[in-house]
């Protein structure tokens, strides 16, 4: 069981991700944008961060940079949920410090398979 921070401004995506992860026995903390996620992260560490890229207030890339600056998030896997399958956007994510990405649309099984890559 891992503690996972799920960040997405879309409530339906957030619920889907959260429901899937909880169903697999994980502990999920939800945040609706980067700023909210960062505020949580400043208080405690998690095992994995899943974050959307396009969000109001603080987008996923900024969140990623900010998280990497926190000592407890230096090596935490951070996966970006992105609809952009192009290399550019992925590189942007990487240079912000993201571990990897999950390309939307994805289904619950794909999500679980992917996060298995970085947990444990």
């Amino acid at each position: 069981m891992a503690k996972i921070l799920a960040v997405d401004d879309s409530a339906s995506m957030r619920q889907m991700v959260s429901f899937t992860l909880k169903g697999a026995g994980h502990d999920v903390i939800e945040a609706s944008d980067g700023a909210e996620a960062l505020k949580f992260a400043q208080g405690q560490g998690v095992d994995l961060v899943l974050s959307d890229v396009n969000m109001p207030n603080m987008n996923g890339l900024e969140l990623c940079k900010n998280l990497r600056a926190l000592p407890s998030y230096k090596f935490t896997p951070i996966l970006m949920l992105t609809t952009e399958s192009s290399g550019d956007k992925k590189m942007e994510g990487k240079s912000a410090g993201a571990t990897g990405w999950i390309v939307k649309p994805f289904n619950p099984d794909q999500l679980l398979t992917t996060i298995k890559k970085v947990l444990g």
Partner: protein
Amino acid sequence: MSIDLSQFHQVFYEESYEGLDAMEQGLLDMELVDPDPEVINTIFRAAHSMKGGAGTFGFTQVADFTHVLETLLDQIRSGQRAMSQDIQNLLLKSVDCIRQLLQDLQSGTQADTEETTTLKSQFEAILNDETATASDDGQPPEATTPASGDSDGQGWHIRFIPELTILQTGNEPARMFRQLADLCDNNMQVTLEYQRLPEFTSLDPEMCYVSWEITIPCAIEKNDIDEVFEWVIDDAEIIITPLSGHDIADHSSSADPSNEPQEVQSEQPKPTPVEPKPVEKAAAKQPAKTQESSSIRVSIDKVDSLINMVGELVITQSMLGQLGQNFDISRVQRLQEGLAQLEHNTRELQESVMKIRMMPISFVFSRFPRLVRDVSISLDKKIELVMSGESTELDKTVMEKIGDPMVHLIRNSIDHGIEMPADRKAAGKSETGTVKLDAYHQSGNIVIEIKDDGAGLDTDRILAKAMEKGLVPEGASLSQEQIFDLIFQPGFSTADVVSDLSGRGVGMDVVRRNIAALNGSIEVSSERGKGSRFVIRLPLTLAILDGQLVKVGQEIYIFPLVSIVESIQLDDRSINQVGGHSDVLQLRDEYVPIVKLDEIFHIDTENRSIEDSIIVVVETDGEKIGVVVDELLGQQQVVIKSLEENYRRVDGISGATILGDGTVALIVDVSSLSKMSGPSLKISDSSHQAA
């Protein structure tokens, strides 16, 4: 694990509708020249979220459509393409189109694909037209390494030389090896190369100095290996080469000879594409039924204050409980205090609960900029919409019902009120007409004003029309107010030519009726050449009413307090007979028709003489009627219960309530009461007034 994604559909619909509203708002607010990047971002984000959600939940049609939308928006966002009127129009149309698609999906009707296809091809035409290319148009993920052929089922040799900083993106080589091991059933050999390791003193523990050589003598797909290293291809040198027979010989000692390479299958489940869910075909194209259970969003503040209030109620309750256990007369003072406290708590609680249903009127107002824009374009008029008081709160039910009447009024203002630019100029006015919307609270009501600076109502034409239609007797002289009032009469329409916008059979009479159904009223004032002003007054809520309790016989009836003008004790002289059977009351210089509740509702009363009764003068639709009752009781707030839901509709009654002693009292529907009193009285009343 299989998860039923349909449980998230409702949330998806709701947030998509919100997203569409935000897009629409953003598009309307946007300056075409040098648009605010934040506005573009908001629009882009909404499209983007919808695309992501639609794809995930299997709404491929929506996903495909939003994809082209998003591509275009991304170009605008990144400055590759300038915003134009055409693009704005197209985007607005697509907002409508997506909304329709979602509604069709939601109600299970077959979506009409024609418009989607048309719009989509228009987008594609724009996208292909210019050389600005889409940046993320579904390029296939680039190959990790030059294609190195197939392994012939022999296996693979991998050199993995990560950059020093690889750990800082959270990529842990050990996890990748574990994945590889899973792929080949632990049948692999990993050799560590540590030549890059520096002196211990200069070693940075956060760096990765080592590299690896991995041999997998199994027939696994190269794609699977690529996928393992997918996230680090730019942070590492990865060379994957198929094992030749020679390599196999070299490493045969480590490979389990009994393991037939061909039989080893990849254990990694392949991601399955999201299957597009076929839209359930409705047997016939039925009108979309709204199956959604409507919900409201309530701010946390309101909920908190509610919980707070309940807390206080519980304290009061326990205090009273304690008091009751050992009660003696000496403590009656405290009991009274407690009860007063309880009353206070209950009232506050009631107010807080009502507040939950209250929403800012901006929910209704927000659709008008689009309306005004579309209507003014189609009529070639220049119109500025000015809105104020958007944060004024109103009951959700009232809000839902006031939208259509307002649309009608605004359309009317634009269509009939505001003149063509040339006419305006000739009249010495600015070419751009103004329509002002305002909302504010006034003594327990919400007041909505719709004001335009157009031509104003043409009293001569209205009167002529009304006479032509037989609504007013030929040659009658009416006051200006009465003439204005004519536009609310059924069967009245001044538009000489029935335009696309107004005059579709839905007249102002319907507007007035709808507003009256909400216990509200509408008034109009106008000045030739200066403009007109419509004022709608509505109760803040439909659930609670300030009522005047009256007694007729043994029954208690309730009048909405807002409709009562005055209550008077009768004396003989003020009653006149008109036409032999109708009574009218002479009220100062007016004559008011009299309605007897006991006759209408067939109540037995001992007191048959009208002279001893009390008359409650109520006003509805600008007309007064006197209602005869036996006794005036108190005034109190009553909670309205629907009679239609619990019984059936009854003429003259708008609802029921339960009084403090548990008895049921009926609430009088004042506007239908005036109709029951007989339409013949109207004209005579008017002529008396005019005289």
